[in-house]
């Protein structure tokens, strides 16, 4: 097992948790990306958009800041220290995946951050159910695509 990768995962996870805590402490909001950004784009809520835009810009600039600092602080699997990894699918696959992620997180009121991090931390039954469900279908999808259909190459 790659302990450095795991340790970086833990450190990054704690930072994500601090971000979620900070957002609740200051603005009283759940740090759910699909909710923050999705509602910004589809609803443009009056008087409730500025912090969403700022959050979005912060989210994009975080990895850029790490890249600018240098020093190999990222955790890409095949390239140690690299900050942003390459997509694993071609354009066609990603078009389908994006639609499923958008529709799914929209209907399901949340994604890995809103349900998976903030919801589980609140011990919310809806988030536990949603997280169990999307983990299950993701595991099954990867099994079918990689081991039965031979997509995604690596194995």
């Amino acid at each position, binding site marked *: 097992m790659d302990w450095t990768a795991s340790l970086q995962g833990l450190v990054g996870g704690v930072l994500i948790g601090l971000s979620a805590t900070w957002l609740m402490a200051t603005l009283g909001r759940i740090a759910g990306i699909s909710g923050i950004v999705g509602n910004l784009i589809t609803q443009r809520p009056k008087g409730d958009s500025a912090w969403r835009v700022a959050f979005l810009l912060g989210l994009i600039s975080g990895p850029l800041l790490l890249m600018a600092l240098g020093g190999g602080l990222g955790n890409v699997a095949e390239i140690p220290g690299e900050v942003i990894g390459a997509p694993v699918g071609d354009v066609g*696959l990603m078009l389908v995946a994006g639609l499923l992620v958008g529709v799914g997180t*929209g209907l399901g009121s949340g994604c890995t951050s809103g349900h998976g991090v903030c919801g589980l931390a609140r011990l919310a039954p809806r988030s536990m159910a*949603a997280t169990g469900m999307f983990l299950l279908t993701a595991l099954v999808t*990867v099994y079918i695509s990689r081991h039965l259909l031979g997509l995604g190459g690596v194995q």
Partner: protein
Amino acid sequence: MNSSMSQSNKSNWMKTAAGYAAGLLFGIGLAVSGMTDPARVVGFLDVAGAWDPTLMFVLGGAVITTFVGYRLVFKRTAPLLGGVFQLPTKRELDAKLLGGAALFGIGWGLSGYCPGPAIASIGGLSLPLLAMLVTMVLGWFVAKRLA
């Protein structure tokens, strides 16, 4: 009048700054943990292959930190910058929640991207990622129509 006006401007500015700080910290967390690499995410989901445990540490670290953090935050009656704590009030496990989560999981498994890492990876822009971001936004509009 003037002073209350500038007071409210100052408060808006602080809310925006707090939002930026949260996003920045979140983006750094995703990048440090390796979640901006979809291969790591798919590696975690590939339990029948060369399993990559990284995501487990990320989710574990994030949930435990947030669990403790929220406990401290909720000792207050309101957020530091005003307003109220806006928490979901729905309780029922309906078809929309479970069906939506199921669809999301399929897209997540296919691409290795959930919304946070997909957006945080914009700086390393590639055509497949751009394609995904476009249909993800389209999907949010579709979901709003269906809801």
